[in-house]
């Protein structure tokens, strides 16, 4: 049985079904909350913090993609505090990661006026390109750690469980278990990961070769 709940988003009253997220409820009335890691095909995780909103009664900003709508909730999706948070997320990401093929991030940098030089000179994440199989190339210098690839490899699609987070903190990266080459893992090369990658970190080998006509991937 579906039950409806009522909440207020940017002073508009919204009716939605129990279990829906704030992101769903806002989207239903045309309020656009920016996202980076979110993909409707995957279970949301609130990793990138771009979709943060203010919720009454909550001390911290809440990630709209994982916050369930509850009766009587009041949500604000735009405020100086929210903008500052989103800008900082983008500035730190731009300082550490190659965003050249993440159009969503580039658009949001332009929109929020994020200063991508703010953390210039800090550490950059530049792991070597991994080309360990005939199907696709992994260039984690471009990875924004959205986790979609891990999810579609697991219960969101393939149930192969070949990859996961490796390392901690700044050194977190997507990797196979024990760093094994993909052909030695449970990977079945379905490429669901390539299909959901938003940042050009995962590419078919053929696409990589077109971009790098002088030689094969490292």
């Amino acid at each position, binding site marked *: 049985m579906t039950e409806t709940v009522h909440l207020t988003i940017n002073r508009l009253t919204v009716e939605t079904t129990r279990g829906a997220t704030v992101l769903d409820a806002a989207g239903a009335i045309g309020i656009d909350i920016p996202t980076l890691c979110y993909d409707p095909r995957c279970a949301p995780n609130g990793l990138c913090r771009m979709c943060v909103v203010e919720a009454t009664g909550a001390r911290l900003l809440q990630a709209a993609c994982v916050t369930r709508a509850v009766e009587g909730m009041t949500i604000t999706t735009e405020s100086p505090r929210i903008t500052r948070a989103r800008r900082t997320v983008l500035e730190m990401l731009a300082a550490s990661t190659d965003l050249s093929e993440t159009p969503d991030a580039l658009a949001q940098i332009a929109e929020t006026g994020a200063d991508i030089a703010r953390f210039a000179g800090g550490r950059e994440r530049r792991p070597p390109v991994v080309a360990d199989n*005939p199907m696709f190339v992994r260039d984690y210098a471009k990875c924004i750690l959205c986790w979609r690839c891990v999810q579609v490899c697991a219960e969101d*699609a393939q*149930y192969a469980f070949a990859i996961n987070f490796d390392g901690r903190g700044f050194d977190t990266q997507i990797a196979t278990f024990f760093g094994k080459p993909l052909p030695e893992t449970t990977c*079945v090369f*379905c490429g*669901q990961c390539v*299909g959901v990658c938003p940042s050009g970190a995962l590419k078919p080998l*053929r696409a990589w070769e*077109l971009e790098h006509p002088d030689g094969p991937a490292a």
Partner: protein
Amino acid sequence: MVTPDRITTTTCPFCGVGCKLQLHIKDDAIYQVTSPSDAVVNHGNLCVKGRFGTDFIHHRKRVTTPLIRRQPQTPGGRTQAFDRAAWREATWDEALELVTDRLTGIYAKHGPDGLAAFSCAKATNEDNYLLQKLFRALFRTNNIDHCTRLCHAGSVVALMDALGSAAMSNTAAEVALSDVFIVTGSNTAETHPIIALQMKAAVRKRGAKLIVIDPRRIEMVDYAALWLPLRPGTDVPVFSAIAHVIARDGLANNGFIQARTEGYAEFLASLGPFTPEYAESVSGVDRRLIVEAARMYAGAANASIYWALGIPEHTHGTDNAASLIHLALMTGQIGRPGTGLNPLRGQNNVQGASDCGAMPWHYPGYQSVTDEAVAQMFDRAWNVEPGGLNRARGLSTTEIVGAIGATVRGLYVMGENPMMSEPNLNHARHQFEQLEFLVAQDLFMNETAAFADVFLPAASFAEKVGTFTNTDRRVQRVRRAIPLRGNARADWTIVCDLALRIEARLGRPTAGWAYAHPAEVMAEIAQVLPDYAGIHYERLEGEGLQTPVDDTSHPGTPFLFADAFPRGRGLFRPLEYIPAVEPTDETYPLILTTGRVLEHWHGGSITRNSRLDELFPEALMELNPVDAATTGVADGQPVRVSSRRGTITLRAKVTDKTIAGVVFIPFHFVEAAANLLTLDDVDPRAKIPEYKACAVRVEPLQEAARPSKRGRR
């Protein structure tokens, strides 16, 4: 970052799931394949073949100009020529004139029985319709068949007998609505990967219970509540024992049996001997598992059965399929969402090629060639004089190969590779050598084409327009993404061009070949194939339509048999256990079963000319650790495998994936062609060979004995 010149939406050319592909094109080449998340069949998911395996289109070995053999070939002296130096390039005009000369010459001398054609489950509905029309309307022969004979023929015959319709009764994705489902004779995770994802989700996310009944410990067993590891060929006793328990324990749906079926009393009487104890004694399956499976299936609110070629590819394949049908009929697990009988079709368009009449006993729409009223209708549809079409059944694929030299002199092969896919290949080779004339229409110089006199280069799926019908009866569009390569032509245009020449040569009134576009061919199909009556291209733009589509306003049919079966009542048929033809003995102590792997496709024409071959480069034989110990074979060691018909050499993989006493070899690898070993004994009714069980011997070899990866050329 590469930006595409264009993105073309089309349908995957590999398996019967029928995933939606978006081909990203740069400089007329595919560099990336994606799928939209709202695709109704696959929800944006793909497997390795669809996502990364379309590079065969651009392979350097692809033949893109018509070829004629330099050395004239004679019956008895025909040879294979893989080397291009043995061929000379020709114009289409010269090549088609030569084909016309030779086929009409054989027809003049030997009549309709002198010719035969292999149509193609990878080609479009339109291609298949036109090739069968050519051979039927012009050469007056029903000797046209395709690889459905080698895959689901037993299922088709059993389903036609029992229900009057041979397709999957339900939409594959309806597994999400099943509480219990049986997977048998199907390595779903490798052969229908996207349907397997839906099955896994049904188990893990919705709590459905899966029963796997298979001699191999396939990946789906990881998701199963029960696994019944049966010896190959013991399907009838196992499924009949499940029926026995259902009846014995009062789990049958008597209301359904009374209202919707016939023959139950006789069937019930025949179940007496099929006790779980008896089934255990012949199949090796623990009797308690049989009882549990029966209770689980019959006790479910909605239960469905999915099967693939492990069921029909036996000399008793029709009986195997019947034993599954009985379960659905006696429990009423059919005719509702999430229930039903679902033969998973292998090729992208095996359903469509069958629907469109590429079969020796049926016109389009499974209308019998021996039915006078039907034949008269097709006489009129194809502008043939009354009584002109052949009223006798034609030969099936394996029968065609067997009849070469006796009756069949000339053979036309469109897109198939019988020299890899027929059983007992040494015999098939001998037969092909006896041909007077052979035409191959293909993308590659495969093992069959290399025997030909004329090679006609066909367009790939990405270069042509048409429709494929997937395993759950969904007719979907195939769209042109890149121009024709070289001088290649779309199959339908080759067939029409040839038909016009043959028609003129034979002096026949035209059967109608002046189609400007495949949409016009579909319009003709809709007139003669009742299930496609409401299909035309404009209606297929989005997600396609599921047949039957009775008229132009009919929305299509997600599941069948809600109210009745096409034959009226579902029919029970008492069965007997007929063991596999070739029992094991001291000389040949192991059972060989054959099949596919995830990375490859059938005879290998496509996937071995793709980067997929780098991913899985070498044939491997799966061997249980128990048998490895007995035969003295280590993991990874080369072995010689022999049957009464042939010998191959390949590497062994010691694994629990196959049960003790059974070895598994995929049939994609010419350098270790599994079909050199298999039996060409066929099911008496369906004519399907026994690919899934023959007796073999395994002997360890030294490393040096392993064949080179490319044994062929």
